[in-house]
C-alpha cells in the first residue's frame, strides 16, 4: 500500500471526552466501543482551565478494562513537572502493556498559571519551545534504563546492570533534570507522542518530536498541503518522514440518518467552525469522505471527535468503520498488540545503547 507519499494503511482514532463525567464507567464503555471497531487509539483531552478529571488517570483506569486499543491522554508541559510527566506516561505504557501515547499540549492562560502560583504565562512560541524540551527529556528518561538493565543475576548478587543506567543531565531554558528515571524503559521504548500541529508554534515541536501529528483542516487540498509540509520539515530535521503520521482531526455530528442531513454538507465535506472543522452527516457519507481523502493521499488517517460522545461514537463504529472494513480499507482485527504496532511505527533505538553514560 506504500505510495510515493509514504502512505501506509488507514489509521483511525477517536476522542472519548465526556464533559461532566468523573466516574470510570462511561469512559470504559467508549474505549471498549472504539476497541470493538479496531481503532488505533482513543484520545482524552485535559486542561487545568476547565472542569474535568485528570486524563492520564482516567485512561490508566481504562487500561485493564481494554486489551488492544491505544490510550492517549493529554498532559500539558507548562506547569507539570517534566519528571512526573515521563513517569506517568511510562507507567501508563506498563499498565496497558504497550498501548500508551501522550498528547503534548501547553497551558496558555494566566488563569492556569495562578492555579500553580509559580510562574506567569509566556508567549505561545516559548511555551511550545519548552514543550519540545519536555518531550526531549522524556525520551531521554525513557532511555535512561537500557533494555536489559534489570539482570537479576543471583551468582553476582546484582539486580541491576548499572552500566545500563544513565544520568540524562538535561538542561533546558527553564528546568534541568539529572535522571535516571525511577523505572525501566517502557514496553514501547518511547510511548507514542501526539501533537496538534495545526498552529504555528506547535508545528516545529511536532516535526521534531511527534510520532503522530493531528491537523484541523476542512478540505483535502489543505490536508495535502499541511501533510506535505510536515513531512518535508521532518525530513529537513533529519527524520524519516514516514515516522511522522498525519491524521486529520474532525468534529463529527452523525445525526440521525444514514446520509447527510443537510444538502451540500455531509457528503460535501466538513466546514470550519469555532471549535474546528465539523463534519455533519450520516455514517455512510463519512465513510465515503474518509475513503476518498485517504485514496487521494491527503492523510494517513483521521482523528474523530464525536459531538455527542456516545451516539456519534456508536454510529462511527457500527456504521462508518464497519463500512470501511467491508470495503477493505480498514483492519478488521488488531494484528499487533502495542500502539506502535497498530501505527506501523518501529520501537525506537535507545539513544544510550552501546555508548558511554
Amino acid at each position, binding site marked *: 500500500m506504500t505510495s510515493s507519499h509514504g502512505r501506509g494503511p488507514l489509521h483511525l482514532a477517536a476522542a472519548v471526552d465526556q464533559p461532566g463525567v*468523573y*466516574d*470510570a464507567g462511561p469512559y470504559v464503555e467508549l474505549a471498549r466501543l472504539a476497541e470493538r471497531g479496531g481503532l488505533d487509539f482513543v484520545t482524552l483531552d485535559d486542561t*487545568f482551565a*476547565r*472542569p*474535568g*478529571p*485528570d486524563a*492520564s*488517570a*482516567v485512561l*490508566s*483506569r*481504562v*487500561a*485493564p*478494562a481494554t486489551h488492544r486499543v491505544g490510550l492517549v491522554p493529554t498532559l500539558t508541559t507548562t*506547569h*507539570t*513537572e*517534566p*519528571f*512526573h510527566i515521563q*513517569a*506517568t506516561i*511510562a*507507567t*501508563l505504557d*506498563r*499498565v496497558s*502493556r504497550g498501548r500508551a501515547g501522550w498528547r503534548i499540549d501547553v497551558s496558555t492562560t494566566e*488563569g492556569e498559571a*495562578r*492555579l*500553580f*502560583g*509559580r510562574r506567569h504565562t509566556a508567549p505561545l512560541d516559548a511555551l511550545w519551545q519548552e514543550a519540545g524540551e519536555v518531550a526531549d527529556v522524556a525520551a531521554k528518561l525513557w532511555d535512561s*534504563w537500557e533494555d536489559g538493565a*534489570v539482570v*537479576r543475576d*543471583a551468582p*553476582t*548478587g*546484582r*539486580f*541491576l*546492570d*548499572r552500566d545500563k*543506567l544513565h544520568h540524562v543531565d538535561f538542561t533546558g531554558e*527553564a*528546568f*534541568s*533534570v*539529572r*535522571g*535516571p528515571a*525511577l*523505572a*525501566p524503559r517502557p514496553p514501547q521504548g518511547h510511548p507514542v507522542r501526539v501533537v496538534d500541529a495545526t498552529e504555528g508554534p506547535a508545528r516545529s515541536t511536532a516535526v521534531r518530536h511527534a510520532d503522530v501529528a493531528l491537523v484541523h483542516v476542512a478540505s483535502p487540498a489543505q490536508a495535502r498541503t499541511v501533510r506535505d509540509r510536515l513531512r518535508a520539515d521532518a525530513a529537513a530535521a533529519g527524520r524519516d518522514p514516514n515516522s511522522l503520521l498525519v491524521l486529520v482531526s474532525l468534529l463529527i455530528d452523525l445525526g440521525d440518518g444514514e446520509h447527510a442531513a443537510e444538502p451540500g454538507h455531509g457528503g460535501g465535506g466538513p466546514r470550519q467552525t469555532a471549535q474546528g472543522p465539523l463534519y455533519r452527516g450520516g455514517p455512510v457519507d463519512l465513510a465515503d469522505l474518509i475513503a476518498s481523502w485517504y485514496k487521494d493521499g491527503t492523510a494517513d488517517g483521521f482523528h474523530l471527535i464525536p459531538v455527542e460522545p456516545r451516539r456519534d461514537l456508536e454510529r462511527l463504529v457500527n456504521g462508518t468503520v464497519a463500512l470501511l472494513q467491508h470495503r477493505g480499507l480498514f483492519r478488521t482485527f488488531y494484528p499487533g498488540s502495542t500502539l506502535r504496532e497498530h501505527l506501523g511505527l518501529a520501537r525506537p533505538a535507545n539513544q544510550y545503547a552501546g555508548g558511554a553514560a
Partner: protein
Amino acid sequence: MSGHRPRGPRPLGRHCHLAAYFPGADTPTVWTGPDAKSPIEFSSFEHLARTAERGLFDFFLLAEGPRPRAHQGGIHDLDAAGRPEPLTVLNALAAVTERLGLAVTADATFNEPFELARRLATLDHLSGGRAAWHVVASSDARTGEDFRRGDYLDRADRYPRTAEFVATARRLWDSWTPDEAPRPFAHRGRHFDIAGEFTVPRSPQGHPVAILTGGSGEGREFAAATADVVLARPGTLEAGRALYADVKGRLAKYGRTADDLKIMPGVTVVLGDTAAEAQERAATIRRRLVSPQRALLTLERLWGVDLSAHDPDGPLPEFDPVADPRLTGGRARHGDAGATAGKLRALSREKGLSIRQTVIETSARQSFIGTPEAVAAELAEFVREGAADGFVLVPQLTPGGLDEFVDRVVPLLQERGAFRTEYEGRTLRSHLGLPDPAGTGEPYDERTGHLA
C-alpha cells in the same frame, strides 16, 4: 454511609485493620529464586492487590521512588530497584478491585497542591471512594536534581510547608458546591499563593484518607492534627503502647477523638506449621536477603573502604573503619562506625561467624514469626492492649508474599472476632470507621500549621 463507630467503651474483640504494602526498592525484598517475580510488571501489583482484597484488607499502599542509590561513584546495583509511578498504577488497580482502599505515597515537596489534589480527587472518583494519600516530604538535594524547584527544602520548613500543602488540598476538595458547581478559591500562605477554580467536584470520600508517618515529636503533633492513619515502626508491645498513648493523647486539643485516627505499624510476618519451622523460614529469608555481595557492601558502608578483596565467607577485616564519604554516602558517622565495627568483630569471634553470617545475624528480625495461631493471637493482643489499631503488612516476596497470611491468619482473626468477615461499606473511610470530613473551606491557621 456505614462505619460511624459508636463512641465509648470498646467492645471486646475489637476489629483490627489490615493493609498491605507493595514490596520492593526501599524494603528488604527477596528477589532471587523462582518464587520472586518482577516488582515492576503490572501483573505483580494486580496479584498483591487481589490477594489483599480477598483478605478483606482496608487498603493497599504503594511507595514512590526512591531514586537509584549511589555506591562507589556508580549506581548501587544489588537491591531490587525500579518502581512505576504509583498513582498511575493505583488508577489501573481500581479496575481490577472493587472495595480495597488504594493508597499512594506522594511527595509534598516536589508536587504542587492544585495538581496533586486534582490527581487524588480523580483517583477517588474513579475508584468510587477508595483513595488515600500517604503524605511524605523529602528534603534531599538528590531528589531535587530532577525537579524545577531545585535541590533543597530546608528541614525546618518541612512540616510547615507540608501542613500548608495538606490544608490547601483539603480546601480545594471542599471548593465545589454540593450541587456540583465550581466555586473560586484563593489561598495565600507562606509557601503557596494560588487562586482559581478546582476542576473536580467533591469526590465520594470528600477528602481522600490522609496517612502520615509519626516519628519525631513534631511529626506526631502534625499527625495528630492532620492524619487519618499513622504508620508506625514495628516494635515491642510496650513501645507500641507508648506511641499509641502519646499520639492518641494529642488528639483532643484538635477536637478529635481516639477513633478518628488509626495507628498501624508496618510489620513483617513469617509463618510455619510449628514455631521451629517458622523460625527456620524466617532465617532462610534473612539469608536470601543478604547475598555475599550485599554482606560486603554492608561492611563497606561501615568501614568506609573497598572490601571487594575480602571473602564474604571469611573473617571480618582486622583493621578499624576509615572515613571515606564516597563509600559511607557522605554520612560522617566515624565514631559510631568504630563502635559498631567493634561489636560486629566481637560477635563474629564469639560465635565463629563469617562476614556474611555476621551481617545476617545482625539483620533485622521479622516482626511476627510463628504458627498462624500464634501470630493471630499476637496481632490481636497488640490491638486489645492498645498498641495498635491494625497493621500494614510488608511482604518480603513479590508477588506471593501475602498469600499465606490471607489464607491462614485472616480466617483465625475472623474466628476470634478480631477482623471483619465482609466489607460493610464501599469507601475506604467506611472500612476504617472514619467520620466523613465536615468540609467546606475550613480556615487554615498559618501560625500553628493546621486547620483552626
